[in-house]
């Protein structure tokens, strides 16, 4: 197991190297010029060119790439072209809100979606099942920003229960932290709740037709332990897989959600960096996300061994 984990982590290095080269090349050939953004709309072409030179953007591709790789090898993600702050510190500033949003969304999603899917499977064909599945289709069809606006209107503007925007660090207290995250997490989670509920239902339906479930019922076990202990564990592999995929997708969903709810996370930093062509920041974030993505996949694979002892690495 340990050697497997080490091998998997080592395998991330070439993946990240390829991602880094790909992203760097893409940014190099993509249109746009940070110098033009920095100089402002009224600046002269000569000023823009001087700024390009001062940023080293006029150097050949290989020189720029080599310099960036050299710094990466020294654990230096570089400096933001715009803020003049280290990329690592910018990411550090922004990682807590994003991870918080993802964590709350994930917990919320699992707590709501899995029971919904189990109940739908248990009541398969009934009005309960149809209602849950109709809700799932509806939630899956709604864009995150629409859900976000509706939630903000109802729970912030009408009832005044929750704030419209912003983020409170966890260090300032659990409730203030959670209060700011409830609406964005529900908005972001709505799609995943729908997705995971459907997958859970399908997986449970398959398991509930197995002989050992019939045996469990014949032994007189109560419905709750049949569903949530015997059946769910055996249905868990596809559910865990989708949750893993969902975490990766959450990174993308966080971009929209953070913009709608003005959460100062990595999603918004990514958008801002792309619009400004802040190359070092974009590259740093892409590296981080690709690493997170590989890590999530590894955790998902390891989780399989917990839910299904037959799986061995």
């Amino acid at each position, binding site marked *: 197991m340990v050697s497997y984990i080490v091998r998997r982590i080592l395998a991330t290095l070439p993946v990240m190297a390829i991602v880094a080269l790909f992203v760097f090349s893409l940014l190099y050939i993509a249109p746009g*010029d940070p110098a033009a953004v920095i100089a*402002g709309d009224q600046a002269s072409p000569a000023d823009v060119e001087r700024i390009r030179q001062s940023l080293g953007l006029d150097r050949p591709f290989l020189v720029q790439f080599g310099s960036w790789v050299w710094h990466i090898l020294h654990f230096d993600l570089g400096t933001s072209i715009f803020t003049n702050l280290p990329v690592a510190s*910018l990411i550090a500033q922004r990682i807590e809100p994003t991870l918080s949003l993802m964590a709350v969304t994930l917990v919320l999603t699992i707590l709501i979606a899995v029971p919904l899917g189990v109940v739908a499977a248990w009541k398969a064909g009934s009005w309960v099942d149809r209602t849950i599945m109709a809700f799932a289709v509806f939630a899956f069809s709604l864009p995150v920003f629409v859900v976000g606006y509706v939630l903000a209107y109802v729970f*912030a*503007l009408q009832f005044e229960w929750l704030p419209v925007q912003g983020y409170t660090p966890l260090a300032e207290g659990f409730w203030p932290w959670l209060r700011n995250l409830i609406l964005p997490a529900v908005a972001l989670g709505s799609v995943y709740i729908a997705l995971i509920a459907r997958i859970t239902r399908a997986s449970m339906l398959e398991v509930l037709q197995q002989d050992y479930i019939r045996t469990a019922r014949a032994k007189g076990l109560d419905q709750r332990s049949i569903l949530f202990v015997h059946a769910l564990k055996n249905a868990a592999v596809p559910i865990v897989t989708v949750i893993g995929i969902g975490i990766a997708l959450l990174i993308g969903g966080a971009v929209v959600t953070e913009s709608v709810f003005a959460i100062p996370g990595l999603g918004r930093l990514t958008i801002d960096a792309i619009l400004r062509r802040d190359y070092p920041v974009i590259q740093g974030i892409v590296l981080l996300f690709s690493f997170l993505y590989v890590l999530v996949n590894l955790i998902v694979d390891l989780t399989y061994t917990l839910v299904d002892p037959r799986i061995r690495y």
Partner: protein
Amino acid sequence: MDRRTLLKGLAGAGSLAATGGLSMPALSQGAAARTLRFVPQANLANFDPIWGTQYVVRNAAALVWDTLYGLDATLQPQRQMVEFEEVSDDGLVWTFRLRPGLKFHDGEPVLSKDVVASLTRWSARDPMGLMLKAIQNELTAVDDRTFRWGLKQPYPKMLLALGKNSTPCAFIMPERIAQTDPFKQIPDYIGSGPMKFAKSEWVPGAKAVFEKFADYMPRQEKASWLAGGKQMLVDRVEWVVIPDPATAAAALQNGEVDWWESPITDLVPSLKKNRNINVDIADPLGNIGSFRMNHLHPPFNDVRARRAVLAALSQEDYMRALVGDDTSLWKPLPGFFTPDTPLYTEEGGEILKGKRDFAAAKKLLAESGYSGQPVTCVVAQDQPITKAQGDVTADLLKQMGMNVDFVATDWGTVGSRRAQKTPPGQGGWQVFHTWHAGADCINPAAYNAIRANGDKAWFGWPTSEPVEKEVLAWFDAKNLDEEKAAVNRLNRAALEDVVYAPTGFFLSYTAWRKNVSGVVKGPLPFFWGVSKTA
């Protein structure tokens, strides 16, 4: 239902909701009243007002750095850091004396050497500064409070150059910071203005915090724009970046923020309905829309093709696309200068007035030799102002019989592509859109877009000797009558040669909660004189 409709519906409904305290941050009543939370027009991504000349940087910098002079509401430069100035009879030597007791935020006194270093850095980047640099004999500190600027020829616009609010402003920094290469960012944000920048709380793209500078010595005169006594009535100003307009509107209605600099026109009706919110015109100097043509390549290298655009262009179409049906928000602009300012003129503007003449436009286009080649319009879709103008332009050019190659992209791409002088088929362009702050268009001083000095001109690189002659005549003008005469001739020449096509003059709103008072109309948000009750 589209996104815009949804926003309007929700914001409209939300405007009827009362505001409450439950969603307010956990501040005490006193602390809440001393903290002003402001939603700026854009993200403060860097904080060097000489290196980066975006308006949002200038607006934040006006809190932290002071200037020698400041433009007041009558557009006149008034003394700010300067106690008095003298100019020699031949106009070649300017001597300035600083006010006593000026201090930087690090406690150091403001000295002449700081001013000299700051002006040296500024003059490498600013159009007026470059003019001064070109005729400079010396710029030296005479003593701790006195400095001298010796010139090879008179420069009547000296005080305007030092006090203007167009970017980059002549902000004064400590010498050690001002010695930074003007094309590189400064390392520290130490000024002598009324507020200190809380660098440790800065989250670029999300939040910027300014704290009252206890040792700031405001002038005794009443504040007027960047002039007079900058009395801070709050202890702390927090800039909260909210990229989504609907969220910003909801946050203002909910009391989570106090002042929103630039509400989008769609959301203004709902904000006006809210009894806790004031809405008013933000800046009476407004903005001028711009249809910028490339003078280097066909068809717009021929003045007849450019005149064809002026003959057919309907400013009303552009303005309605920009600001909707609120006619109080726009005016036709048969020229290039800001309406209701001393130099405003309609001289030569007949071509932009009256019924639009497509027959004449097509005739001019044919005379220019245009024969259906693609016209590349590079349009930023992520800026509502450029997107709206681009959509109208595409239709206009098609109606004129032109073959439009519409390139829908983002502002970052437009920014780099417009700098390309290559033919459109090789990465260049023929048309792009932008807008100019009316404050920059009150005279030719900082009005880059009106210049027509070929290779040195702004994007599009127009060449027009008559235009350049009149720009210089304005700089040399000794009084307002001479200035007016020069600008009249300049306006006519710029329309005849079609330096660019103005698409109209438009205003925008600002909105703030009613527990905030002292908000004034102006070319940037002024925080001095603004107070708040809990």
